[in-house]
């Protein structure tokens, strides 16, 4: 089937070191594409969700509407969401990015709102009593205290994005998903398993990076680990 030499390649084994060494460049570039897509997605989603959540948090109706919309979008299967975006963004890699951003948004908006809600009213009151303005309270009191919840959302969004991005291969932007699909069409087991395992490792790795980042950003939370 394959014009490659070597035992495990000829035998079409699931685990094949020779595959990894001969296709190293391809694996690395797919991994890199996957990382770039994920980081872009989560960064854009965070940049959109923060102002959006801050804008709607006081308005009961706007907030309810936005959360309802988020639930609806979240319930749409990824394949269908990409399909619905095609008339708007075309059969281009942008479609994958926009779709992934939408999913991350539904997760992040919830967590940013929950984080802002969790700030005790007394703390805000005290900040006001110290003469802080609204913007300063937001930037120096509320957002820092909302950090744990926001990071919880970032972690879920990142891990989900890594997994969802694989089907981006349909529009030529799937990162490791391109390899999984290629392995499927060629009935090449080592390629599918290696790319799948890399996907899971990438998700775990990025999750660990976020845990570390949160540790660095919230020095006050280090003494006792609170449930939030």
């Amino acid at each position, binding site marked *: 089937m394959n014009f490659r030499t070597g035992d495990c390649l000829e035998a079409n084994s699931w685990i094949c070191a020779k595959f990894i060494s001969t296709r190293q460049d391809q694996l690395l570039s797919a991994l890199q594409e996957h990382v770039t897509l994920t980081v872009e997605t989560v960064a854009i989603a965070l940049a959109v969700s923060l102002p959006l959540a801050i804008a709607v948090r006081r308005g009961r109706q706007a907030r309810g509407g936005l959360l309802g919309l988020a639930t609806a979008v979240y*319930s749409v299967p990824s394949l*269908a969401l990409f*399909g619905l975006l*095609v*008339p708007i963004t075309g059969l281009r890699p942008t479609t994958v990015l926009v779709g992934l951003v939408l999913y991350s948004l539904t997760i992040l908006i919830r967590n940013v709102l929950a984080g802002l809600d969790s700030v005790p009213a007394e703390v805000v009151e005290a900040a006001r009593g110290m003469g802080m303005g609204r913007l300063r309270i937001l930037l120096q009191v509320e957002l820092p205290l909302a950090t744990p919840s926001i990071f919880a959302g970032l972690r879920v969004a990142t891990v989900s994005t890594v997994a969802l991005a694989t089907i981006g291969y349909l529009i030529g932007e799937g990162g490791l998903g391109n390899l999984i699909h290629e392995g499927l069409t060629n009935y090449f087991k080592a390629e599918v398993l290696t790319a799948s395992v890399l996907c899971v490792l990438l998700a775990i790795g990025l999750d660990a990076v976020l845990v570390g980042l949160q540790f660095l950003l919230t020095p006050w939370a280090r003494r006792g680990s609170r449930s939030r």
Partner: protein
Amino acid sequence: MSSLRGVINWLTDGAHWRGSDGVVVRSLQHVELSALALAIVVLVSLPIALWLGHVKRGGFLAVNVTNIGRAVPTFAVLTLLALTSLGISNRSVVLALVLFGIPPVLTNAYVGVREVDPQVVEAARGMGMTGFQQLRQVELPLAVPLVLNGIRLAAVQIVATMTIAALVSGPGLGRIIQEGFATQNKPELEAGALLVVVLALCVEGVFAWLQRVVDPVRRARRGGHSHDDGSPQPALGDAASVVGANQHNQA
């Protein structure tokens, strides 16, 4: 918009609805296999989760299974299945659906039972209830919102995974989208996407309604204040706030 007209034309063409690869057959496949998988998920994971929550053990497993389920791409699992000797059949697709449906049910039901106010459980024990009675009559009713939330999330996940199954030549509505992508036939892929969205929103709607109707705590509150005579009213408030705290993390 020309693309809208294309979609309408595709959807109103009767030929697309009939036959073994028509919309009707594909929809039925989608709904039947999803419902079967959800039933298996609930039967398998609910008893385990409720029991673990009752004895307050295995929390690490119950919570982490959701994180693992999230990190593993459904497309990868379906592709791996397709390359094993099982191949892609109705049976192996249901297996994949079950694997991805278990985590939300397990985690939510576990958290729901574990987070019931210990004082309420203590009171139940004081009344002479056995462990099973405590679970059945006190913990489970208070955990219903989270249990249902888990089942809803599992249903959403299963319907989505079922759609992805089309990418490995599996059954279901996703096939219409997949064919549309494969042949760059935009009306077909958009029509398929629309059908899947309608199905997904129906599932979401049914569960949102169920959550409102079934919750015994909410029902008890609505049906006159018969609980004002010192039964576990404050605890109900606590359980409700726990539910609120947990819901956003499940996204």
